[in-house]
């Protein structure tokens, strides 16, 4: 009988899974961050499929409540003329005049 079939080993696995911070099996998205205010008009990321209305619908360049996926750590270094800090932000913001 395979060792994973024993109740005790299953209990150990489930119990351990509960307590340890899970090691993700692999997470290609992990080195991305949502960056607000750096998308050009109509180029914001949002994948909901054909006929849905959110992808590519930001009305102005560098819209403060539109986001793009960018490599981790680069968001707040990306220029955003509408952002009060002058750079992309990790949360929505209200645009200032560019």
């Amino acid at each position, binding site marked *: 009988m395979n060792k994973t079939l024993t109740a005790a080993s299953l209990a150990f696995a489930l119990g351990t*899974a*509960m307590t340890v911070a899970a090691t*993700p099996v692999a997470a290609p998205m992990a080195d991305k961050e949502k960056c607000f205010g750096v998308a050009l008009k109509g180029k914001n990321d949002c994948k*909901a499929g054909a006929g849905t209305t959110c992808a590519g619908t930001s009305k102005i360049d560098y819209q403060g409540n539109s986001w793009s996926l960018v490599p981790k750590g680069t968001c707040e270094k990306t220029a955003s003329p509408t952002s009060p800090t002058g750079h992309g932000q990790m949360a929505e913001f209200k645009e200032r005049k560019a």
Partner: protein
Amino acid sequence: MSQQDFAAALLDPDLPAPAGLAAWNGSDPAQRFRVYRNNVIVSLIDALADTFEVTLELVGEEFFRAIARLYAYACPPQSRLMAFYGAGFPDFIESFPPAAGLPYLADVARLEYRRIVAYHAADVPGVGAEAVAAALADEATLPTLGMTLHPSLSVVVSTSAVVSLWAAHQGILDLSTVAPDAPETALILRHGLNVEVLQIPAAVGAFLCELQAGASLGRAAAEAMSIDTDFNLVSILGLLLQKSAITALNPTRSPT
């Protein structure tokens, strides 16, 4: 002219324009029908291009639009929800002889479609620590414990590097480092509002598919172990709990 005749003529360019059409300004109704027919098919091709973005990038605009056009004629939408249009497109690609040299193409399309489905899947909360503790307290029933997984969760098993190819086209990986023929298994699930794509070992994919098919924890784990003795049950259970992807624990004493 019946509605059926009109619809049939719309989707078959070899059919003549339906009889009985009239144009308000005296122009040729057959010509105007051809314009309308073209708009219909182009809008369907555009819908597929929206959903299968990476597939399009992999083969280029011209090839993609050619195969999308054939698909749109063969399988017009059955629902008004265009977000879900293209469910059969990956299979269509697979059976399309000109795409035979690109074995990864259909699987990348599958991954893209599952992401759309995951995005729109129902919200169901994950089980809490109490439910897990209750299951642990009744240790003898763990081998026959059933697990319901989140409705957004799905697995794409591929003989190609489906996750790496997809990730390379999101700017996450460098495409030049991807070996397209390395088998990969993709896990797609939505956590909160984010659809996530993870690469998982084949045995983990088998484990999840077994659970989805209703197999017990013990049986699913044994199946995964038979594929790979290094199968890490702790790691996948931890991931599922962390992503709130286990939505119910179903204790049962009947053998499964």
